[in-house]
């Protein structure tokens, strides 16, 4: 109770100190459940490829950034209603999403998605798991003959393959590779599929200034090769710029 009163007092106090500069702190929203892009490390903090990338981008754009995590399902509605200022969560640039939010310059090349399964599987006519409301889920839904099995989290999709509920899982290749390495039974099967564009940072459409700052910072990281270094470190099998 005391906490709440204190914080309401603090809120009121902050409210009266009107700050002119809107983006003195930029809040970056991520999911925190999608290694190696973003995950929560042992210390309980956001870590991964996008953590390092985001920190570097913010340094170059001379912004103070803060990390927040949000459920994947509501990550875009919370951005447009202003609860954070940018999404950096392994989000592929798609036309559907572009209608609602803007993307910065892409910081990965289109990353292939791959199937992971126990040994060889005939994918046409297989049961394929995917995380609900991802581009992979809609891809499987449109595959002739395949049966889509949707789960709320990426972890559950892997578990479904292990316990035989699904024959394979379709997800980003960079997410699946460490899983395949850690578990001898699981392996990447079939051809990779290219769905979606590269990954970019999502910002509100009205926030063009922020988008341009991010794009410029990403472009400068591309130029001096530091982005490629990050990609090689975290996403060893992805193509570099």
């Amino acid at each position, binding site marked *: *109770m005391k*906490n*709440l009163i204190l*914080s*309401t007092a*603090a*809120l009121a106090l*902050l*409210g009266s100190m*009107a*700050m*002119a*500069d*809107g*983006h*003195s*702190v930029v*809040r970056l929203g991520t999911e*925190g*459940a999608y*290694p*190696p892009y973003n*995950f*929560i*490390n*042992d210390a*309980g903090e956001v*870590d*991964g490829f996008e953590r390092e990338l985001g920190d570097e981008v913010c340094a170059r754009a001379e912004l103070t950034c*803060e990390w*927040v*995590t*949000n*459920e994947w399902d*509501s990550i875009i*509605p*919370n951005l*447009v*209603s*202003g*609860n954070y*200022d940018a999404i950096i969560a392994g989000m592929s640039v798609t036309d559907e999403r572009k*209608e*609602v*939010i803007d993307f910065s310059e892409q910081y990965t090349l289109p990353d292939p998605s791959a199937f992971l399964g126990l040994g060889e599987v005939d994918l046409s006519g297989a049961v394929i798991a995917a995380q609900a409301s991802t581009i992979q889920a809609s891809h499987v839904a449109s595959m002739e003959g395949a049966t889509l099995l949707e789960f709320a*989290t990426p*972890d559950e999709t*892997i*578990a479904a393959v292990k316990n035989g509920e699904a024959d394979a899982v379709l997800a980003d290749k960079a997410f699946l590779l*460490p*899983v395949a*390495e*850690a578990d001898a039974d699981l392996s990447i099967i079939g051809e990779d599929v290219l769905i979606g564009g590269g990954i970019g940072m999502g910002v*509100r*459409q*009205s*926030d063009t200034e922020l988008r341009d700052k991010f794009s410029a910072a990403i472009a400068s990281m591309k130029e001096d090769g530091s982005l490629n270094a990050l990609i090689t470190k975290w996403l060893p099998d992805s193509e570099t710029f």
Partner: protein
Amino acid sequence: MSIYYAVGTVLLLLAITAPVALAFGFGGALAARSHVAPLRWFGKTYIAIVRGIPDIAFFLFFVIALDQAFEYIRHRIKCPDWADPVWQGNDFVVCNIAKLPLGNAPQWVHETYGFFLAVLTFAIVFGAFAANVLFGAMRAVPKGQLETAEAYGMSRRQTFRRVLVPQMWVYALPGLSNLWMVLIKATPLLFLLGVEDIVYWARELGGAKQPQFTDYPHPDWRMWYFLALLIFYLLFTKISEMVLDRIMARLTHGQATAGGEAQRKAAA
């Protein structure tokens, strides 16, 4: 570590929500039995609508709506001469000083604000149920008691304050304790409201960890984390039951109900 912190969050939320929801319920019940027609309609619609919607559906959009409503009100007050529209296409844009919390506020303020919104949402949902219980309880107070008060020359107000409210609790408690149990069991949905609760952490910490990303790799341990949660909830329910039984015995004392009668006989 975070999971212990989350247990604290859940307990704190329950401790704050219960009285706030009770206040909402009291207000709702008063409105529903008001003599002013619009107020009565408002009270009854509030009870009927919120009770008719599954809480999960409510949580999924209500927090964002609530947040936007607050910011919109602040926006109207703080930036009266803002020229741009608030809804630009899909974006909801208010002037910077109307943001809640402010964009440059530290993380703990954001978390507290999120927590506050969660409390409010829970209170609105469970307030409707509480209103329904209290509404019934007010009607269950024996007519004779109210008539007696009237005979003593008490005004409507006095009767309400001195007789109806103190007497109704014994009738309301079974319903309220049931509601408390339902409230405890609604806390796993907290993660929908952006509060990182125990179920969130159980899923996060229990999920399989690859050796590349942690010093403590382990397979899928969610089973054990959830087992711990199960025991936590069962214990919590048991303790609540014991406490509520005590209160009930206290309230029943000397009441004209079956329970009160039984106590009287046992004593005699």
